[in-house]
Each structure stands twice: as C-alpha cells, then as structure tokens.
C-alpha cells in the first residue's frame, strides 16, 4: 500500500492533466484547475520543510563547531533577522525588509551574476583550443559569429553579418531543434513512466 496509493494518485492526477489538454469542458477543466491550485498551496507549505531543513543543518554545525561554522551562524542570524523584520514591519515597498532586500541582497546577487562574464571567457578559452577537427571547427565558426556581431566584422566584409545570421538560423537552429525534439520525446516518456507507475523509484521503492 505504501507505493500503490501514491502510484494511483499520480495516475489520476497525471491523466487528469493530460485529458484537460484535449477536453475543455468544465467537468474536466474545473477539477484540473482546482488541482493546479492545490499544487501552488502544497508548494507554499513546502517552504516550512525548507526552513526546517536549513535551520536543523546550520544549528547542528554551529553547535558542534565543525569547520567553517561561522558561515552557518551568519546564515541563521540573517534568516531570523529577515524573517523577523518581514513579520514585524511587513514587506511593503519602503519598509526595512524592502530596504534590506534592495540594498543587501540585490547587490550580492548582481555580484554573483557578474562573475559569469569572467567564467565565459575562461570556458571559451578552453573550449576553443584547436585540439581536434571538431574543436577547430568550433573555433572557426565561433570566431566568424563573434566577428559578424560587432561593427568591425561588417567593415571587414559587408556580407559577414548576414552570413552570421545564416549560421545561427540554419545549421545552429537545425541542431537545436533536433535536440529539442529528442528532449521533448524523453520528457513525454518520463511523464508516461511516472503516470503509469513504471518508474516508481522516486517514491522510495525499488
């Protein structure tokens, strides 16, 4: 029963969603909409699990003074402080929570994102080393595309931007669509395996 009931629930919920794609009548559409609403509510409750998980692990680390416990302490302090400020003063624009979010969290997030520029450069350097025929082809095509997208490329050869567009829209798009079709079929297969209970390892059974 530990697996049969969840599998039956997954089947009913999954089939309802599949059928609702083809049957617009309210006798299917309305239960499907209700179920989507339930999903949002359950997801919201899952945050309690998330906070419990992060608090348990962090406090455990702080209590045992394991390596780098100070980071966990800072995390717990920040978690409690932000939650306290939000609960006490609200999360409206202009409040302390909003101020902390905009002036502390957003700049930190932007800092992380800005690292991407440097990582792209280092990854591109490694990827474009001409060690094989494929890597050389990649290097040449990437150089052409990069040149075609900057003004100097057009100066070198007026047809370069159009050629770059052709590379992006024809061979590149063909490869992308091939991958997308394969991935879509894989996604449908995985969904079908879940709905029919063929794949049930996610339930904790073998």
């Amino acid at each position, binding site marked *: 029963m530990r697996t049969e009931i969840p599998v039956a629930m997954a089947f009913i919920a999954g089939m309802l969603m599949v059928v609702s794609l083809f049957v617009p009548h309210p006798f299917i559409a309305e239960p499907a909409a209700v179920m989507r609403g339930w999903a949002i509510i359950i*997801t919201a409750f899952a945050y309690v699990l*998330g906070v419990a998980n992060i608090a348990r692990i962090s406090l455990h680390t702080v209590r045992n003074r394991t390596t780098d416990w100070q980071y966990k302490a800072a995390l717990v302090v920040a978690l409690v402080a932000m939650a306290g400020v939000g609960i006490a003063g609200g999360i409206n624009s202009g409040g302390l929570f909003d101020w902390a979010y905009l002036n502390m969290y957003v700049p930190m997030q932007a800092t992380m994102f800005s690292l991407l520029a440097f990582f792209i450069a280092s990854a591109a350097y490694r990827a474009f080393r001409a060690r094989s025929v494929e890597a050389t082809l990649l290097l040449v095509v990437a150089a052409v595309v990069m040149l075609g997208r900057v003004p100097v490329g057009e100066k070198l050869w007026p047809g370069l931007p159009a050629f770059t567009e052709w590379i992006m829209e024809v061979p590149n798009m063909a490869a992308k669509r091939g991958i997308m079709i394969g991935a879509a079929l*894989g996604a449908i297969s*995985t969904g079908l395996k879940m709905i029919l209970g063929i794949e049930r390892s996610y339930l904790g059974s073998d």
Partner: protein
Amino acid sequence: MHPLSRRLPSYGLTLPLVLLSLLLAASPGLATVILEAVDVPNDDGTALGLTWMGDLAEGDSLTISRAAYPDTAWSYVATVDAMREGYIDQGLSRKITYVYKIESAGGRPALSGPVSPSASFLNTSRLVMLAVLALYFISVLIYIKLAARGREFFVRRISGLNAIEEAIGRATEMGRPVLYVPGIDDLNNIQTIASMVILGDVARMTASYETPIIVPVCKPFVVPVAEEAVKQGFMNAGRPELYNPDNVRYLSDEQFAFTAGVNGIMLRERTAANIYMGSFFAESLILAETGFSTGAIQVAGTANIHQLPFFVAACDYALIGEELYAASAYLSKEPKLLGTLKASDLAKVIIMVLLGIGCITETLGLTSFADLFTAR
C-alpha cells in the same frame, strides 16, 4: 435615455432587436455596420466571438457593449480598432444569453442576435496532437510488453553515464565527497523528476563505495523527494547506516544565492566529483567553472538547450537533452524502462519521416500537410 436602455420583454427579443438594428442602419447619412456574435469553438464555454463588417474607415474605433438577455442594460466591454478582424469576449457565463452592440465614433449602433456560450467536449483543433500522443503511448506500452516478455534491446553507449561511476570511484580514491546538484527548478519540471530518479542510482553507487554524497537543493519541495531518493539509494546498496540526512541541504530558492551556496560547498568541502543533472539556467557556467577550478571531475546533463554549450565547454562529460531522460533506464538496466527508450527511438524515426514529407510539401507550396501539425 437611449432607446435600447429599457428592459425588453423576455419573449421575442430577436425580432425587436433586428427591427431596431435595421431602423438604425437605414438612418439617412449613417453608415451600415453588421455585427455577428457566435460561440467560440473548442473552449470551456466562457467566450463569445464578435465579427463586424460595413462602412468603416481606417482609424475608426468601435465601442463594444454587452447586455444579458432579456435585460438590455448595456455594460461596456471594450473599445477596439474598427479594422481588426474581430473581438473575443471572455469570462462569460454559460447560463446567460447575451446580445452585443457596437457603436462607432459617429454614434451609429449595430446589434447582434442573442447568443449563449457553450462548452466543447473535445478540442478538435488538437485532434492531430491527440492522435500522435495516443500512438506514442501505445508504442511505449508495446515495447514495455515486449521487454516484459524477455526481448533484449540494444542501447547505445552513453559516455556521460558511464563516467558517473568513474567519477564516484575517483572521489572514493581521493577520500572526498560527491556533489549532486539536481538543478534549480521545482518538481513540476520533468527534468527535476528525471534528476531525482538518477539521484537514487548515484546515491546507491556512492553508498556501495562508502563515499559521502552532498545534495544541495534549490526548491523546498524537492527536499523530501531528494532525501527519500538518497535514503533509498543507500538502502538498495545495503548500507542504510551510512545515510546522513544533513547531506541533503536546502540552500535558497533564489538563483544566485543558491549558486553561491553550492560554490561554497565545492570550495570548502573539496568535492572530487560534481554531477549536475536537471534544469539549469544562468548559474550553469558559474557552477561548472568553479568545479573545474577545484579539479573535480564533472558530469552534467540538462535539456535546457541554452545551457548545454556551457556544460559541454566546462564539464568533462555532458548528457545532451534526451540522454538526461534516458539515464534512469541506462543506469538501472531495467527492461521495462529500456522499452520506453526504444519507443522514443521509433517516435524519432516517424518524426524524421514526417519532417521529410513536410519539407517536400512545403517546397512544392502545399501547406495543408504542415497545417495539420500547427499548434493552436
């Protein structure tokens, strides 16, 4: 008071409306506009479509009003460009009959006949999609049946999946943990579900090698599923006592806070094998490059097409698109799951044939074949 703003008797609404409409249209110096209201097909019975034709000029605007039968207290619906093809009025009730009125800037109204929205039992515009999906479902079931009868299927070698065990072995030799990142999307993304299935197999391997596995999680809803997958993997390996619940860690559901947390784990705990499976976005390269800088062997898999080049460039092995979904069958070698892979292959062959036919028919100027598959 406008002549239509009074309440009409419940019987014979159509006739007075038509007479009134004809009278208004026949007014000297006023242009004629004909308004038609019809039920929108293939919907849940909450919309009506309006179309109009008549002496309308570029730049004219029309004010649409609606009344519920038999009451003719008009309520404003929208103001639209007179040149557009029509208007769909949504959010209506199936239990009410409606009449519509449009007025141009000159104040000449046109009335529709009474009409009620009705719900469709089948969206006929998706019949081809339904047929294709049904065929695919049937082929999957046939291959599963064949697999259950003992038919063996050939599955090509997927280097990225073979590399997972190699990476775990290396981590074991170095005495360092394995990091498994299941993407940053929630469980409503099928990639995350596929990732959870792979996680079970990876956890089983790490347990058999007695190597710790760390699973940072971005969405709280994924936490219990990841915990269950890891726990079950350790049980399947016969080493449940090695399972450490503190190693499935919820970090943050904010993208870059999560990224910073995972990078911190890589740098502080010196993970020797990093496995990224699931749905990744802009953080993919930040994670993979940080992992590269720590010297970890890295295996990644995603169906997010824009992140694939980053993983291919920065990781040792990458699973591309469908390989992510094939991983559970490949790793478990379970015949039923392998059967679904063969059904996918068959579907790909059929799609290739259809694409070929589509290319030929479109080149010849025959659009009806491609129209069959147009999404609506």
